[in-house]
């Protein structure tokens, strides 16, 4: 228990150097590293593939390659039943995703959990449970779009 705890503490310290808001926000590591899926795939409920619209990256994107901008990421989630909304607050009967961006370049996406907290895949590293603000900053930019869909709309 001690060793595992130390390891987690060490990982959290490393994360804090990249995501300084962690020091004043909630974040918990919830999975081991896995480069088989990325943040977009995780938000979309796919843990087998990496998603990205760029033709150069050669990854999966619903509807085929597209520009790598917030509009394209929004459209991808619209194909999954999401529509843009104004609030990142927990709303009964809805599930939400939040797109982080630097200007118009999308850098990350998180999915809301039933508790109101959020879940994210950090690049090729771990999944984490966090508050929305915990990941804002130099690495991922800031939340620029929030989308929601009726719970169960994915058909899962």
């Amino acid at each position, binding site marked *: 228990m001690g060793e595992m705890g130390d390891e987690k503490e060490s990982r959290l310290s490393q994360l804090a150097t*990249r995501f300084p808001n962690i020091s004043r926000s909630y974040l918990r590591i919830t999975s081991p590293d896995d480069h088989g899926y990325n943040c977009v795939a995780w938000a979309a409920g796919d843990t087998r593939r*990496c998603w990205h619209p760029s033709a*150069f990256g*050669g*990854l999966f994107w619903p509807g085929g390659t597209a520009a790598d901008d917030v509009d394209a990421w929004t459209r991808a989630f619209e194909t999954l039943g999401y529509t843009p909304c104004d609030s990142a607050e927990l709303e009964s009967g809805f599930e939400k995703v939040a797109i982080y961006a630097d200007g118009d370049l999308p850098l990350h996406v998180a999915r809301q959990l039933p508790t109101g907290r959020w879940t994210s895949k950090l690049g090729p590293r771990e999944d984490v449970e966090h508050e929305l603000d915990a990941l804002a900053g130099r690495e991922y930019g800031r939340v620029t779009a929030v989308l929601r869909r009726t719970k169960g709309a994915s058909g899962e």
Partner: protein
Amino acid sequence: MNGSFWLDNPQGRASTTGLSDAASIVDRSRRTAARHWSETITSERATPRGRFQQLTRWWKRDTEYQSSPTRIAMHPAYQRIIGMGPAALPFILKDLEATQAPWFWALHAITGEDPVPAEDRGYIDRMARAWVRWGTKKNLV
């Protein structure tokens, strides 16, 4: 007393017995340079493999948590690896096979090819295998 640490250093004096002070300085400088060459990144920069390894370490350290393939590929070290051109391909393919790091952008940029079948897009292990197969056919692996 001449005030020089090097010349007053008993260890240094012992290793250059029989040489004049000036010759000792030259000899020690030569040995320091040789050690610097063999033990530091200076030698790494001198070969394509060394340059690739140094740039790859820099790139992976900086993009460890990046989610955006665009940001990952725009990192200056990644761009410099692309700038190495076909000379980088054997090193990229070897690292791809070992680590499945996101080299697809660089491979596509350098070769202009994409051997990954459409149905395998996004499956990192399948994509890596497709590129390694491509490299094997081209005698790059």
